[in-house]
């Protein structure tokens, strides 16, 4: 117990003394995960919308495929991309393995199924009349689409926050694709894994605190939005 307290104390010291290495790791985490979210969200929204409102063959199969991908372990996603991006793989000429770009790709691959599934269920649960009313009032397809998104913003936001929480805490794919290179591809989860294996528990706990604080903020935001949704 005293060891845990000692490590936690040292962890707080590291955090508040502005230890540059620690904060750089935090920065890399946010940079890659935010970028992955920005790139994954637009296609995911379109896919979710198509699945909820479209009438096309294979729609149900696609929904099942996305739901299945949701349970793919991050390590498997990482391994698949590793084999694609390795110099010996089909995309090897891009030389992307062990770069931040590879990490972003891995996180996108993890984020898209989750976004599609959660957003699809939000869209599906909503009243189809929003779309019909908008169309009847003379809105074009794009306008009607935006109206639906605006109506459902709370549910969609919840999907974004939950997905961001998943990819920023993910260790398997980032470790394989980024290689855990100091100053470059070492993010919060891979650093925690490394520091723990080195017996440097303080550094691991400090980073754990950052992740937990982040997830607390995310959850507060989530509850804030959900609460408003109920009142409205």
């Amino acid at each position, binding site marked *: 117990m005293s060891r845990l307290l000692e490590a936690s104390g040292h962890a707080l010291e590291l955090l508040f003394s502005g230890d540059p290495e620690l904060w750089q790791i935090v920065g890399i985490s946010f940079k890659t995960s935010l970028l992955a979210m920005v790139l994954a969200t637009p296609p995911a929204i379109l896919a979710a919308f198509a699945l909820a409102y479209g009438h096309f063959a294979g729609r149900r199969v696609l929904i099942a495929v996305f739901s299945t991908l949701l349970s793919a372990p991050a390590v498997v996603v990482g391994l698949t991309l590793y084999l694609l991006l*390795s110099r*010996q793989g089909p995309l090897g000429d891009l030389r992307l393995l062990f770069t931040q770009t590879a990490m972003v790709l891995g996180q996108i691959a993890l984020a898209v199924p989750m976004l599609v599934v959660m957003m699809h269920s939000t869209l599906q649960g909503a009243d189809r009349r929003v779309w019909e009313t908008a169309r009847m009032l003379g809105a074009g397809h794009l306008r009607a689409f935006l109206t639906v998104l605006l109506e459902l913003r709370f549910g969609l936001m919840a999907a974004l926050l939950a997905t961001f929480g998943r990819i920023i805490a993910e260790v398997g794919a980032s470790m394989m694709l980024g290689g*855990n290179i100091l100053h470059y591809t070492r993010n919060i989860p891979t650093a925690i894994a490394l520091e723990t*294996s080195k017996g440097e528990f303080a550094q691991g706990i400090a980073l754990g605190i950052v992740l937990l604080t982040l997830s607390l903020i995310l959850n507060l935001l989530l509850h804030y939005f959900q609460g408003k949704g109920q009142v409205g």
Partner: protein
Amino acid sequence: MLKSLFAGTVLAFSLMTAQAADPAAETPKPVNPVLKLATTTSTDNSGLLKEILPVFEKESGYQVQVIAVGTGKALKMGEDGDVDVVLVHARAAEDQFVEDGHGDKRYGVMYNDFVLLGPEDDKAGVKGTETAADALKKIAEAKAIFVSRGDDSGTDKMEKSLWKDAGITPEGEWYREAGQGMGKVIQMAGELGGYTLSDRGTWLAYTDKSPLTLVLEGDEKLFNPYGIIAVSQKKYPDINHDGAQALIDWMVSPEGQKIIGDFKINGKQLFIPDADADEEEQAEDLPEAA
């Protein structure tokens, strides 16, 4: 006339600056500054690379990106051309790597040795044995917990060959393959009160944090040499071969060797530089790089 004079002046000037820039430059700027090094957890976790690489980076202008994995995986990354240079410790696998044409040449860099670690009370009575084979026999007889790396790392390869020498096929509930890095395995053996094999470097880095104690050292079978190999440019023409060779040349240079020898944890030297051992042989192979 004027034109050729001008051209001549430009040429002379550029030659001058080129010459002046070379020796005088504080930090040169290589064309391809990013160098990817796959290495073992023992060189990285012990803190050696953190100590020596910044010196090389400052002098050469290269930026070394370290990917620390087991020796087996590091060699695989080199074989696939995903890294430019590998620094590993498994002599047989290294020679095979070069023989198969994945790398140009193996350079000896340094060595240390493996040590056998065990619980304070030494349940299996390993202390007092002289050879690794005898020690392992005692552990197997007592069915004392032994935590194996089980990850095809250099240490894992060494451990497997030691069991083979002892004529034992380790299996059963007492033999636990962790599939993790050295540091993690020392922690696990400590928690379980078991035995394990470690390189001395990682052990020195963990001595203070571990309840384990050293139970056997000094068997010549436990010798642990480290080698560095540039990935073959013939196989991968656009690999950062210049960078790889620059790192190798620096590691085996008197300066690099001195820094490696000076690296200490708790006042104890971790690695003994030994590039001199085959310096002449290396010199013969250098002209291509120069």
